[in-house]
């Protein structure tokens, strides 16, 4: 998979809720192979304070339309400017970057996403199902009104939901959900992406249940392709780059998890 710098064209900007939106960006040529867990680095134009590119997971890929879908949460200037993009606008991206989640061909896989961390899980679910495994989604959010549209997830697997305010699904954190309690024993693999404390809680639960667990880290990145060594995570084999040797790591590789 050769990495490229390419200027995409925005074809759609769909608002999901107050904080989230899905951006569709199209290439003029057919896309290279893209795997679940990989990400892009976006150059934010016209941002006085966005000197560096911004890493964003690949949410989905539409090979028929040569489109990449990005799930974006507005948190600062860069993501706000992305949220303002309109069809026809250009988007300069480096892609595809990073490694991928494991895709077993059988067994139960629990996909735990918190907040915008759900981004890579939809595509992962699709790949798992196509390969013969059974994906189960568990999505956590602060409240129903900032939860994802669940339609696409439900087409792929069963969907558990937790909200901190109890407005939908189980009240509490993802680790309060039955899927992470009684359900966990049935799983062969747990894949998680979301805020650090959430991933650590999920990892701890998986570890004590002796289930393989993969986490997708969101370390600060300056380049995204292995050149700067800024994005390192402490592993049992020393520092590794989150951008090239991750973002997905088996928790057994990581120190302190």
């Amino acid at each position: 998979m050769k990495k490229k710098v390419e200027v995409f064209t925005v074809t759609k900007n769909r608002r999901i809720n107050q904080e989230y939106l899905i951006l569709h960006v199209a290439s003029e040529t057919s896309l290279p192979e893209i795997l679940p867990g990989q990400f892009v680095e976006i150059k934010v134009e016209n941002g006085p304070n966005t000197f560096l590119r911004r890493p964003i997971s690949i949410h989905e890929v539409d090979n028929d339309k040569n489109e990449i879908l990005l799930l974006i949460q507005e948190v600062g200037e860069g993501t706000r400017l992305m949220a303002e993009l309109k069809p026809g606008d250009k988007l300069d991206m480096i892609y595809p970057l990073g490694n991928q989640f494991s895709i077993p061909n059988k067994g139960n896989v629990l996909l735990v996403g918190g907040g915008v961390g759900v981004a890579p899980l939809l595509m992962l679910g699709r790949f798992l199902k196509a390969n013969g495994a059974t994906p189960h989604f568990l999505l956590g959010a602060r409240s129903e009104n900032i939860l994802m549209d669940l339609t696409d997830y439900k087409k792929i697997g069963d969907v558990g939901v937790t909200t901190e305010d109890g407005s939908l699904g189980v009240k509490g954190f993802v680790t309060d959900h039955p899927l992470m309690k009684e359900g966990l024993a049935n799983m062969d693999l747990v894949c998680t992406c979301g805020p650090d404390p959430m991933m650590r809680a999920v990892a701890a639960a998986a570890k004590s249940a002796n289930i393989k667990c993969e986490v997708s880290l969101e370390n600060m990145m300056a380049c995204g392709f292995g050149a700067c060594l800024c994005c390192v995570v402490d592993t049992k084999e020393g520092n590794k780059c989150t951008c090239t040797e991750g973002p997905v790591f088996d928790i057994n590789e990581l120190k302190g998890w």
Partner: protein
Amino acid sequence: MVNLAVDINGYSLKNPVMTASGTFGFGEEYEDFINIDDLGGIVVKGTTLHHREGNAYPRMAETPAGMLNAVGLQNKGVDYFINNIYPRIKHYNTGIFVNVSGSAIEDYVETAEKLNDLENIPGIELNISCPNVKEGGMSFGVHCPSAVAVTEAVRKVYKKHLMVKLSPNVTDVTEIAKGVEGAGADSVSLINTLLGMAINAEKRRPELSTITGGLSGPCIKPVALRMVWQVYNAVKVPIIGMGGIMNATDAIEFMLAGATAIQVGTANFIDPTITVKIVDGIKDYMNRHSITDVNNLIGGMIVD
């Protein structure tokens, strides 16, 4: 046809565009994006005598028109470079320089000695911005005596092109430039990063694990240009200029201020193809200004 080749004290670069150490990996990281052979030269990652893990995460913070880093010379050591990396990159048809770092003079010397025999390494860049562990941790490069001492020691053992990279965190950069020139440097490169710091006001914590770190990017360009111009007026050896070069215009400014060649650092992170664009941009500028030899740009700033 314009001439882009420049000579740095006997070694010829096919064009003045090099890459800055620590921002270009070993070149391999950029193979997907550009043809490395199109560059005048590359300076590979900071290499030390022994393996170094570098600093703890977080190692970077974005700042206005720039970034701070605190990588801390993470590398596998010079032997690993010689045995594992050099064989993979020696085929590049470009000047491959190794950036040599250390915390004691003996480390520098031993590392440089080992690099003597690598046929396709025409020179080393001595990074004297590292903390001098024997003398209280102040960097070698900020005091003239220690800068001279490390340059002299390495000069004694290293046979090929010796480029010395100057720190900008000094009162008088010309004093140190003259010192290392006298100690046998074949060229000087500047600037390394400015020492800076960033704080997260909400968390009331520093952004970097090391609290302070190195500032790079366009924000430092005015300081870098000033130092290149000062050093140009102080030494005879060629100058390799850097600090915030983002495009061909910036590169030309450094040459006008006195640089024979330039290095592109942080800009590679934002556009991994920028170096070859800069080569093309220099050609365009020369055509537009009817300049046939890029050497005519060097120190070409008009001062009344």
